[in-house]
């Protein structure tokens, strides 16, 4: 077994274990911290796949901004642990069965039918460097890039309007 494969399996185990930890921990704070670890592991995968720009965006946007926002809201609302309600008791086993079926089907299709098999070819020089990504972004994807700024503006206005107290009310 080569070093590459060994590294992949260790990281994959970490990613799956942290995802399951996110799913199963009682407190929402622990869930958020497990998810930060998961995002960090996926960022290492991005570096292994020659995508340093995406890896750093992953760390700063997901692990940094988004998860800090989550932690703030969890602590602000004080809803770390919710009491278990017993509505729909059959839902949990059914959900587990369906999720296992989903994963099983996807992996069956991948490995049995060789949908996208083959080794990853060696990268050409400077593939995926931030410079190349920037050139691609501004040469061929300029309009979507600009539309993104409008989307972020709308999200910002929406968040402010939604959380603003009504005048005279409450």
């Amino acid at each position, binding site marked *: 077994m080569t070093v590459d*494969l060994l590294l*992949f399996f260790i990281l994959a185990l970490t*990613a*799956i274990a942290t*995802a399951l930890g*996110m*799913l199963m921990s009682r407190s*929402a704070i622990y*869930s958020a911290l497990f*998810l930060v670890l998961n*995002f960090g592991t*996926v960022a290492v*995968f*991005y570096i292994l*796949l020659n*995508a340093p*720009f*995406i890896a750093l965006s992953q760390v700063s*946007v*997901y692990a940094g901004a*988004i998860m800090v*926002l*989550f932690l703030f*809201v969890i602590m*602000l609302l004080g*809803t770390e642990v*919710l*009491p*278990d*309600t017993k509505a729909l008791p059959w*839902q949990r086993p059914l*959900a587990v069965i369906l*999720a*296992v079926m*989903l*994963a099983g089907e*996807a992996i069956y299709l*991948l*490995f049995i039918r060789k949908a*996208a*098999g*083959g*080794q*990853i070819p*060696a990268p*050409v020089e400077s*593939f*995926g460097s931030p410079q*190349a*990504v920037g050139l*691609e*972004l501004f040469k061929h994807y300029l309009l*979507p890039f600009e539309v993104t700024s409008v*989307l*972020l503006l709308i*999200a910002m206005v*929406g*968040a402010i309007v*939604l*959380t603003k107290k009504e005048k005279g009310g409450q």
Partner: protein
Amino acid sequence: MVPVTYYVALSAILFSIGALGVLVRRNPLIIFMSVELMLNAANLAFVAFTRFYQTLNGQIFVFFVMTVSAAEVAVGLALIVTIFRTKHSINIDEMNGLKG
């Protein structure tokens, strides 16, 4: 090198765990985190295929997915805060105001 199939299989497993989280958990914040996990799994598949086919389009797409998910989280968390303010609870089982 690691075959691209392994990356896509890992992505499928992470996506299934995210889907399971949406179905099983009752805390909307954790449901939200599961949605983020699913988006992340999709991103991993994109980057793996980008590396496989030696084009940069997938990485650009991941960049846009990240932007959209950041916007989604901002608005979604604002909605959760507003719901908490009116109902004093965010348990998903108690959000039945539209039930006939």
